[in-house]
C-alpha cells in the first residue's frame, strides 16, 4: 500500500524552516576560538533532520546539499577539524541557500541549484583539504586550477553573474510612491545594467492614467552581488509586482535574447548620461511587436507569509475547556426555555450573563491563538546586523528587549518589512563608522536596540540607535528645495523630524540621502498606517534616534465607542479617544477663517463637525446641545462633534474594500447587535479630510494635506 507523502509536506517545510532558524541563530552564537559542543550539536541535529526528511520526501537536491555540510559539522563535532570563521560564513550562506530551495519547493517552483552546487564545491574543497579557506575568505581554489569554476563561497560572491530580472510592476506601483527609476539606479550601482523596456501595455494618450504604470522591463545585471541583494532593491514592490530573477548562463556580453537583439541600452552607473543606445536592429516604436513573455509569477517570493500556525497544547486545552463551559450554559438555557415561566426570569438573566461571560472568554482565547511572540520577527535581525556590520565596516551591538511580547500573527507578518527597513537605515546611516564615533568621543561600538512592549492595548516597538541622529539643517534644506515646505515656514524640531516621512523625500529622484534617512520612510509609515498603527521619531543630533511604532494587537476586533450623528451610528476606535465631554461654550473660539477651536486645558484643538464631513443631518447644529469627543491620531488632536454617546463595545471589523469599496474617512464596518450596519471611523483619515474640507471652505489650513499618506 502506498502512502501519499504530499499530505506531510506542509509539516516537513515548517519543521525544516524551524531547523534552519535554529541553525542560523546557533551559528551566530558560535565563537570559533572556543566552540561550544552543544551549539555545534544543535546545528548538526538540525541539518541532519533536514537531510533525513528531505530524502524521505524525495527532495534529493536538498538532501545532497545538507549531506555535505553535515559532514563538515560532524568533523567539527568530533574535534577532527578546527572551526574557522569562514566556515561559519559558508554555513550561514548554506542556510540562506537551503531556505531559498525549500521556499521554491514549497511554492512548487522549479529548483535553482546553481548556488547550492557552488556551495557544495566549496564544502568539498574544505573537506578534501585542497584549499583551506583562510580567515577573511579571500583565498580560492581557482589558484590551483585556473580553469575550474568558482568554488569558495566568498569568491562566488565576487564572481560576476549575469542576472535576468523580469519586472512587471503592479499597475498601482507609481501611485504608492515607488519609482522604477530609483530601483534601476540602485541596480546600476551594483554592476553593469542593461535595460530593455516593454511598451506593449501602454495605452494611447487619451486612455492613459499617468498615475498607473503600464511599462515593464527586462533587466540584465552583470554583478558580483548576490540574488538577495538584488531582491532587497525590490523588497517594497515584491508582493504586488511580478518579479523573476534568474541567473543566466555565460557572461553578460554573450546574452542574446529576442528583446536584447532588437535594442540594447547599456547604462553604467557613473556615465549614465553618456550611455549610448546600441541599436542593433532599429525598429520603429509604433511598429514594434516585441514577443513578450506572459507575466510570470514568482511563487517563491509570494509564499513568505505562512498559512499555518503552531499552537501550544495549553492554548488548545484552554479552548476545549471554554467550549465545554459554553455547551453547559447552552444546555442550561435550552432547558430553561422549554420550561420557562416568569418565576424563572432571574435564572434566565443569570444564564444569559453566563453566556456572555463564556463567549467573551472564548473569543479572547481564540484571539490568543493567533498571538505569537515578536521573537519570530526579531530573530532575523542578529544575522542582518552581523552581515551588514561586516559590509559597512562598523562595529554594532544589537540588543533585543521584550522578545516574548505577543502580537497577532498577521500584524507580525506585515510589520517585518518596515522593521527591516528601519533597522537597515539605522545601521547604514544612523550609526557612524568607528573612526567617526571615536572623533565624536563615543565608544567605537554603536548600539541598536529593538524594544517591544505592551502599552494600553497596543504593542509598542522601539528602534533605538545611539548614532548621529537626524540632521535638522539638512532635512530643512531638502524640504525647502523639494517644495515640501515654504521658504519662510518655521517648524519646530518635532515637525522637522516628521518631514522624513513625507513622500517628497523619497519620490524625489535626486534625493537618496537626507542625513542618512528618508528613502522609503513614507512607505514605512504608509505600511504602518495600513495596520492602524502609527510611527514617530525622536532624535537628538549627535546622540541618536528613536523610532516608535504603535500597533494594534489584532486587526480582527476593535474596542469601539458608539456615537450618534443624526440618524447614523458610527464607531470611534476607543484607542483614539482622549476624552469625551460636554463643551463649555466659553472655551470655544471662532478663529479667523471660520474654524472653531476648543480650549482643552492648555491646548487649542480644532473642532470637526461630522455632519459636515459626511453630509449627515444632525439633531442640532448648536454646539451647546452637542458633545465633543477628543480624538488623537499621530500627533494631531481634534474634537469631533457628536449628537450622543452610546455604549462601548468590541466590534468585529468587516473590510469595506472587500465588501464594497474604500470610503474616505471610514476604516471598516461592523454589524451591531440589532443587525444594523455601523461604520468605523478612520481617525487619521478623518483629520486630513476635515483639514481639506476647512481648507476648501474658507482657506484655513488645519493640517497640510501634504502629510496625508497616499
Amino acid at each position: 500500500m502506498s502512502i501519499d507523502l504530499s499530505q506531510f509536506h506542509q509539516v516537513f517545510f515548517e519543521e525544516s524552516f524551524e531547523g534552519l532558524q535554529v541553525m542560523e541563530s546557533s551559528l551566530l552564537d558560535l565563537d570559533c576560538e572556543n566552540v561550544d559542543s552543544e551549539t555545534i550539536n544543535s546545528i548538526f541535529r538540525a541539518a541532519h533532520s533536514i537531510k533525513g526528511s528531505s530524502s524521505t520526501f524525495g527532495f534529493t537536491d536538498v538532501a545532497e546539499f545538507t549531506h555535505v555540510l553535515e559532514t563538515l559539522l560532524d568533523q567539527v563535532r568530533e574535534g577532527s577539524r578546527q572551526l574557522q570563521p569562514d566556515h561559519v560564513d559558508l554555513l550561514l550562506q548554506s542556510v540562506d541557500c537551503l531556505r531559498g530551495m525549500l521556499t521554491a519547493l514549497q511554492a512548487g517552483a522549479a529548483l535553482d541549484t546553481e548556488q547550492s552546487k557552488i556551495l557544495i564545491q566549496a564544502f568539498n574543497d574544505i573537506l578534501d583539504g585542497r584549499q583551506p579557506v583562510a580567515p577573511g575568505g579571500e583565498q580560492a581554489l581557482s589558484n590551483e586550477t585556473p580553469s575550474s569554476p568558482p568554488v569558495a563561497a566568498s569568491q562566488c560572491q565576487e564572481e560576476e553573474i549575469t542576472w535576468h530580472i523580469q519586472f512587471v510592476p503592479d499597475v498601482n506601483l507609481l501611485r504608492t510612491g515607488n519609482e522604477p527609476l530609483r530601483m534601476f539606479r540602485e541596480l546600476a550601482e551594483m554592476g553593469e545594467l542593461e535595460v530593455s523596456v516593454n511598451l506593449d501595455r501602454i495605452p494611447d494618450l487619451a486612455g492613459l492614467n499617468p498615475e498607473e504604470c503600464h511599462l515593464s522591463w527586462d533587466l540584465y545585471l552583470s554583478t558580483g552581488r548576490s540574488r538577495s541583494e538584488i531582491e532587497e532593491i525590490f523588497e517594497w514592490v515584491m508582493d504586488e509586482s511580478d518579479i523573476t530573477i534568474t541567473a543566466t548562463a555565460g557572461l553578460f556580453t554573450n546574452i542574446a535574447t529576442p528583446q536584447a537583439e532588437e535594442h540594447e541600452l547599456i547604462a553604467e552607473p557613473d556615465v549614465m548620461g553618456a550611455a549610448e543606445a546600441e541599436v542593433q536592429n532599429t525598429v520603429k516604436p509604433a511598429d514594434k511587436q516585441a514577443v513578450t513573455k506572459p507575466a510570470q509569477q514568482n511563487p517563491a517570493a509570494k509564499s513568505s507569509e505562512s498559512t499555518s500556525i503552531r499552537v501550544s497544547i495549553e492554548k488548545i486545552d484552554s479552548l476545549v475547556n471554554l467550549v465545554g463551559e459554553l455547551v453547559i450554559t447552552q444546555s442550561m438555557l435550552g432547558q430553561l426555555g422549554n420550561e420557562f415561566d416568569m418565576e424563572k426570569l432571574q435564572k434566565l438573566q443569570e444564564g444569559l450573563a453566563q453566556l456572555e461571560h463564556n463567549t467573551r472568554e472564548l473569543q479572547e482565547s481564540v484571539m490568543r491563538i493567533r498571538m505569537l511572540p515578536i521573537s519570530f520577527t526579531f530573530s532575523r535581525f542578529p544575522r542582518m546586523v552581523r552581515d551588514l556590520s561586516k559590509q559597512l565596516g562598523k562595529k554594532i551591538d544589537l540588543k533585543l528587549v521584550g522578545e516574548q511580547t505577543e502580537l497577532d500573527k498577521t500584524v507580525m507578518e506585515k510589520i517585518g518589512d518596515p522593521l527591516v527597513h528601519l533597522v537597515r537605515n539605522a545601521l547604514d546611516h544612523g550609526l557612524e563608522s568607528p573612526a567617526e564615533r571615536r572623533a565624536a568621543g563615543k565608544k567605537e561600538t554603536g548600539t541598536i536596540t529593538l524594544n517591544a512592549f505592551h502599552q494600553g492595548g497596543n504593542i509598542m516597538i522601539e528602534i533605538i540607535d545611539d548614532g548621529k541622529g537626524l540632521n535638522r539643517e539638512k532635512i530643512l534644506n531638502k524640504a525647502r528645495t523639494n517644495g515640501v515646505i515654504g521658504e519662510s515656514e518655521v517648524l519646530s524640531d518635532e515637525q522637522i523630524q516628521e518631514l522624513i516621512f513625507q513622500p517628497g523625500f523619497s519620490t524625489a529622484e535626486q534625493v537618496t540621502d537626507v542625513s542618512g534617512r528618508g528613502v522609503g520612510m513614507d512607505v514605512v509609515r504608509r505600511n504602518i498606517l495600513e495596520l492602524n498603527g502609527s510611527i514617530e521619531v525622536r532624535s537628538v543630533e549627535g546622540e541618536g534616534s528613536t523610532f516608535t511604532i504603535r500597533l494594534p494587537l489584532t486587526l480582527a476586533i476593535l474596542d469601539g465607542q458608539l456615537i450618534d450623528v443624526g440618524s447614523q451610528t458610527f464607531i470611534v476606535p476607543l484607542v483614539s479617544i482622549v476624552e469625551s465631554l460636554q463643551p463649555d461654550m466659553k472655551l470655544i473660539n471662532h478663529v479667523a477663517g471660520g474654524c472653531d477651536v476648543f480650549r482643552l486645558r492648555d491646548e487649542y484643538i480644532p473642532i470637526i463637525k461630522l455632519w459636515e464631513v459626511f453630509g449627515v443631518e444632525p439633531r442640532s447644529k448648536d454646539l451647546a446641545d452637542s458633545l465633543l469627543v477628543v480624538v488623537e491620531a499621530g500627533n494631531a488632536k481634534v474634537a469631533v462633534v457628536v449628537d450622543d454617546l452610546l455604549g462601548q463595545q468590541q466590534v468585529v471589523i468587516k473590510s469595506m474594500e472587500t465588501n464594497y469599496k474604500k470610503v474616505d474617512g471610514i476604516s471598516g464596518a461592523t454589524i451591531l447587535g440589532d443587525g444594523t450596519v455601523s461604520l468605523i471611523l478612520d481617525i487619521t483619515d478623518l483629520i486630513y479630510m476635515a483639514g481639506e474640507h476647512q481648507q476648501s471652505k474658507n482657506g484655513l489650513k488645519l493640517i497640510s494635506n501634504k502629510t496625508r499618506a497616499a
Partner: protein
Amino acid sequence: MAESTTYQLDKFSDISKADILLEKLESYLNGGVSVAVDASQVERIDTSAMQVLLAWFKSMEKQHFQAQIINPSDPFLKAASMLGVSEFLRLKH
C-alpha cells in the same frame, strides 16, 4: 507646409504634474500640427512623466504626426537611458 509648435517641459516633471503634461500633450493631438517637446530645462523627471511622453509618441505616430524631443537635458537623457526608452523617444546622445 505643416505647422509646428514647441512645448517646454517642466523643470521638475514628475507624477504630481503628469496629469497636466498629459492634458497639454493631448490638446496637441487633434491640432494637426507637429509638436516638439523641449526638454532642455528638465532637472528631474520620473517614470510617470516619461510614460506620458511615450504614450504621446505612440498616439502621434498613429495619427502620422511627428513628435520629437528637442534639446534634452542631461538629467532627461540619463533618466530615459535608465528606463530603456531612449530609442523610442528617438534621443540622440
